[in-house]
Protein backbone atom coordinates (compact mmCIF):
# COMPACT_ATOMS: atom_id res chain seq x y z
CA UNK A 1 0.00 0.00 0.00
CA UNK A 2 1.20 3.48 -0.83
CA UNK A 3 1.44 5.60 2.31
CA UNK A 4 1.66 9.39 2.13
CA UNK A 5 1.61 12.09 4.80
CA UNK A 6 -0.61 15.13 4.24
CA UNK A 7 -1.31 18.29 6.20
CA UNK A 8 -4.70 19.90 6.76
CA UNK A 9 -6.00 21.33 3.48
CA UNK A 10 -3.55 19.34 1.38
CA UNK A 11 -4.82 17.02 -1.30
CA UNK A 12 -4.00 13.90 -3.29
CA UNK A 13 -4.74 13.28 -6.91
CA UNK A 14 -5.70 9.78 -8.02
CA UNK A 15 -5.52 9.51 -11.77
CA UNK A 16 -6.72 12.44 -13.83
CA UNK A 17 -9.95 13.30 -12.14
CA UNK A 18 -10.10 12.15 -8.53
CA UNK A 19 -9.05 14.59 -5.83
CA UNK A 20 -8.97 13.70 -2.14
CA UNK A 21 -8.47 16.50 0.35
CA UNK A 22 -8.00 16.48 4.14
CA UNK A 23 -10.61 18.92 5.47
CA UNK A 24 -10.42 18.52 9.21
CA UNK A 25 -8.50 16.53 11.79
CA UNK A 26 -10.10 16.23 15.21
CA UNK A 27 -8.73 13.68 17.66
CA UNK A 28 -9.15 10.25 16.04
CA UNK A 29 -11.46 11.53 13.30
CA UNK A 30 -10.47 12.82 9.91
CA UNK A 31 -12.88 14.57 7.56
CA UNK A 32 -12.05 13.90 3.94
CA UNK A 33 -13.42 15.60 0.85
CA UNK A 34 -13.56 13.65 -2.39
CA UNK A 35 -14.14 15.13 -5.83
CA UNK A 36 -14.67 12.38 -8.38
CA UNK A 37 -16.63 11.89 -11.63
CA UNK A 38 -20.25 10.78 -11.21
CA UNK A 39 -19.57 7.28 -12.46
CA UNK A 40 -17.03 6.68 -9.69
CA UNK A 41 -18.83 5.15 -6.73
CA UNK A 42 -17.47 6.34 -3.40
CA UNK A 43 -18.65 4.37 -0.37
CA UNK A 44 -17.47 3.88 3.18
CA UNK A 45 -15.77 0.48 3.17
CA UNK A 46 -18.08 -1.00 5.81
CA UNK A 47 -21.14 0.16 3.84
CA UNK A 48 -19.83 -1.57 0.72
CA UNK A 49 -19.19 -4.76 2.70
CA UNK A 50 -22.70 -4.68 4.16
CA UNK A 51 -24.21 -4.07 0.73
CA UNK A 52 -22.24 -7.01 -0.66
CA UNK A 53 -23.55 -9.29 2.10
CA UNK A 54 -27.12 -8.09 1.58
CA UNK A 55 -26.99 -8.60 -2.17
CA UNK A 56 -25.54 -12.10 -1.72
CA UNK A 57 -28.36 -12.98 0.70
CA UNK A 58 -30.98 -11.50 -1.63
CA UNK A 59 -29.74 -13.58 -4.55
CA UNK A 60 -30.09 -16.78 -2.51
CA UNK A 61 -33.90 -16.71 -2.46
CA UNK A 62 -35.87 -19.82 -3.29
CA UNK A 63 -38.40 -19.55 -6.08
CA UNK A 64 -41.05 -21.55 -4.20
CA UNK A 65 -40.81 -19.07 -1.29
CA UNK A 66 -41.47 -16.25 -3.71
CA UNK A 67 -44.51 -18.07 -5.13
CA UNK A 68 -45.75 -18.68 -1.59
CA UNK A 69 -45.40 -15.07 -0.47
CA UNK A 70 -46.96 -13.78 -3.68
CA UNK A 71 -50.25 -15.37 -2.66
CA UNK A 72 -50.58 -12.49 -0.19
CA UNK A 73 -51.19 -10.17 -3.14
CA UNK A 74 -53.75 -12.25 -4.99
Amino acid sequence: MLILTRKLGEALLIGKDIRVVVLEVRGKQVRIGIAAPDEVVVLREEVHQRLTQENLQASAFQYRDLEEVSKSWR
Partner: protein
Amino acid sequence: MISPVENKPSEARSLTITTRDLGQRQVEREEIIVFPVGLPGFEDCLHFVLLEYSFTSPFLCLQSVDRPEVAFVVTDPVHLVADFSLKPGAAGLKDWNLEDPRNIRVLVILTIPPGRPRDMTANLMAPLVVNLRTHRGFQVVLDKPGYSSHHQVLRK
Protein backbone atom coordinates in the same frame (compact mmCIF):
# COMPACT_ATOMS: atom_id res chain seq x y z
CA MET B 1 -24.48 -4.09 -48.50
CA ILE B 2 -24.66 -5.90 -45.20
CA SER B 3 -21.31 -6.28 -43.56
CA PRO B 4 -20.43 -9.63 -42.00
CA VAL B 5 -20.28 -7.96 -38.62
CA GLU B 6 -24.00 -7.11 -38.71
CA ASN B 7 -24.81 -10.75 -39.33
CA LYS B 8 -23.10 -11.93 -36.20
CA PRO B 9 -25.59 -13.38 -33.68
CA SER B 10 -24.32 -10.97 -31.03
CA GLU B 11 -25.61 -8.08 -33.13
CA ALA B 12 -29.13 -9.46 -33.46
CA ARG B 13 -31.98 -7.29 -32.15
CA SER B 14 -33.25 -9.95 -29.80
CA LEU B 15 -31.49 -12.70 -27.96
CA THR B 16 -32.37 -15.78 -25.96
CA ILE B 17 -31.17 -15.79 -22.40
CA THR B 18 -31.15 -18.52 -19.80
CA THR B 19 -32.75 -17.44 -16.54
CA ARG B 20 -32.43 -18.75 -13.01
CA ASP B 21 -36.11 -19.58 -12.46
CA LEU B 22 -38.00 -18.78 -15.64
CA GLY B 23 -36.38 -21.04 -18.21
CA GLN B 24 -35.25 -19.53 -21.48
CA ARG B 25 -36.54 -16.09 -22.39
CA GLN B 26 -36.39 -14.07 -25.56
CA VAL B 27 -35.44 -10.45 -24.81
CA GLU B 28 -34.95 -7.41 -27.00
CA ARG B 29 -31.51 -5.90 -26.98
CA GLU B 30 -32.87 -2.54 -25.84
CA GLU B 31 -34.42 -4.17 -22.78
CA ILE B 32 -30.95 -4.84 -21.39
CA ILE B 33 -29.99 -2.54 -18.53
CA VAL B 34 -26.28 -1.92 -18.20
CA PHE B 35 -24.91 -1.60 -14.68
CA PRO B 36 -21.46 -0.15 -15.50
CA VAL B 37 -20.01 -1.22 -12.15
CA GLY B 38 -22.27 -4.21 -11.51
CA LEU B 39 -23.77 -4.54 -8.02
CA PRO B 40 -21.72 -4.89 -4.83
CA GLY B 41 -20.94 -8.62 -4.57
CA PHE B 42 -21.75 -9.05 -8.27
CA GLU B 43 -19.22 -6.80 -9.93
CA ASP B 44 -19.02 -9.19 -12.89
CA CYS B 45 -22.73 -8.84 -13.66
CA LEU B 46 -23.00 -5.80 -15.90
CA HIS B 47 -26.11 -6.68 -17.91
CA PHE B 48 -29.57 -7.33 -16.50
CA VAL B 49 -33.14 -7.61 -17.74
CA LEU B 50 -36.39 -7.07 -15.86
CA LEU B 51 -38.79 -9.96 -16.30
CA GLU B 52 -42.31 -10.52 -15.04
CA TYR B 53 -43.24 -13.59 -13.07
CA SER B 54 -46.15 -15.67 -14.29
CA PHE B 55 -48.08 -15.19 -11.03
CA THR B 56 -49.77 -11.96 -9.97
CA SER B 57 -47.59 -9.94 -7.62
CA PRO B 58 -45.84 -6.60 -7.41
CA PHE B 59 -42.53 -8.42 -7.81
CA LEU B 60 -40.25 -8.44 -10.80
CA CYS B 61 -37.25 -10.56 -11.58
CA LEU B 62 -33.97 -8.75 -12.17
CA GLN B 63 -32.11 -11.41 -14.12
CA SER B 64 -28.40 -11.26 -14.92
CA VAL B 65 -27.66 -11.78 -18.59
CA ASP B 66 -24.01 -12.53 -17.84
CA ARG B 67 -24.62 -15.21 -15.20
CA PRO B 68 -27.88 -17.19 -15.57
CA GLU B 69 -27.73 -18.34 -11.94
CA VAL B 70 -27.90 -14.74 -10.67
CA ALA B 71 -31.32 -13.17 -10.19
CA PHE B 72 -32.94 -10.82 -7.70
CA VAL B 73 -36.53 -10.21 -6.68
CA VAL B 74 -37.22 -6.50 -6.96
CA THR B 75 -40.21 -4.23 -6.59
CA ASP B 76 -41.23 -0.60 -6.93
CA PRO B 77 -40.83 0.97 -3.45
CA VAL B 78 -44.26 2.65 -3.77
CA HIS B 79 -45.65 -0.75 -2.81
CA LEU B 80 -43.76 -0.53 0.49
CA VAL B 81 -43.57 3.08 1.65
CA ALA B 82 -45.86 5.97 0.81
CA ASP B 83 -43.42 8.60 -0.33
CA PHE B 84 -40.15 6.98 -1.23
CA SER B 85 -37.80 9.66 -2.48
CA LEU B 86 -34.22 9.77 -3.58
CA LYS B 87 -31.94 12.26 -1.96
CA PRO B 88 -30.56 14.59 -4.62
CA GLY B 89 -26.84 14.21 -4.91
CA ALA B 90 -26.73 10.62 -3.64
CA ALA B 91 -23.73 8.74 -4.98
CA GLY B 92 -24.19 7.94 -8.64
CA LEU B 93 -27.19 10.24 -8.99
CA LYS B 94 -25.64 13.66 -9.50
CA ASP B 95 -25.87 13.84 -13.28
CA TRP B 96 -29.39 12.41 -13.15
CA ASN B 97 -30.87 15.51 -11.60
CA LEU B 98 -30.98 16.81 -15.15
CA GLU B 99 -32.88 13.77 -16.34
CA ASP B 100 -36.66 13.87 -16.80
CA PRO B 101 -38.05 12.07 -13.72
CA ARG B 102 -40.31 10.07 -16.03
CA ASN B 103 -37.18 8.42 -17.41
CA ILE B 104 -36.02 7.27 -14.00
CA ARG B 105 -37.22 4.00 -12.55
CA VAL B 106 -36.49 3.13 -8.94
CA LEU B 107 -36.58 -0.45 -7.66
CA VAL B 108 -35.61 -2.06 -4.39
CA ILE B 109 -34.12 -5.51 -3.86
CA LEU B 110 -36.02 -7.97 -1.69
CA THR B 111 -34.43 -10.59 0.54
CA ILE B 112 -36.48 -13.73 1.21
CA PRO B 113 -34.87 -15.90 3.91
CA PRO B 114 -35.01 -19.49 2.59
CA GLY B 115 -38.03 -21.28 4.05
CA ARG B 116 -39.32 -18.11 5.78
CA PRO B 117 -40.96 -16.11 2.98
CA ARG B 118 -43.10 -14.05 5.36
CA ASP B 119 -39.91 -12.62 6.87
CA MET B 120 -39.14 -10.99 3.52
CA THR B 121 -37.34 -7.66 3.78
CA ALA B 122 -36.64 -4.85 1.34
CA ASN B 123 -33.40 -2.92 1.04
CA LEU B 124 -34.69 0.65 1.06
CA MET B 125 -31.24 1.96 1.95
CA ALA B 126 -29.70 0.89 -1.34
CA PRO B 127 -32.24 1.15 -4.17
CA LEU B 128 -31.54 0.47 -7.81
CA VAL B 129 -31.94 3.51 -10.02
CA VAL B 130 -32.43 2.86 -13.72
CA ASN B 131 -32.31 5.49 -16.43
CA LEU B 132 -34.85 4.24 -18.99
CA ARG B 133 -33.52 6.54 -21.71
CA THR B 134 -29.88 5.45 -21.50
CA HIS B 135 -30.65 1.92 -20.20
CA ARG B 136 -28.10 2.36 -17.44
CA GLY B 137 -28.50 1.43 -13.79
CA PHE B 138 -26.75 1.90 -10.47
CA GLN B 139 -27.28 0.64 -6.97
CA VAL B 140 -27.07 3.79 -4.88
CA VAL B 141 -26.78 4.25 -1.13
CA LEU B 142 -29.20 6.67 0.48
CA ASP B 143 -27.88 8.20 3.66
CA LYS B 144 -31.35 8.70 5.01
CA PRO B 145 -32.68 7.82 8.45
CA GLY B 146 -35.77 5.63 8.30
CA TYR B 147 -34.76 3.84 5.12
CA SER B 148 -33.61 0.52 6.51
CA SER B 149 -31.70 -2.11 4.57
CA HIS B 150 -34.03 -4.64 6.21
CA HIS B 151 -37.44 -3.02 5.87
CA GLN B 152 -40.05 -5.59 6.92
CA VAL B 153 -42.44 -6.07 3.99
CA LEU B 154 -45.22 -8.07 5.63
CA ARG B 155 -46.81 -7.34 8.98
CA LYS B 156 -46.24 -10.13 11.48
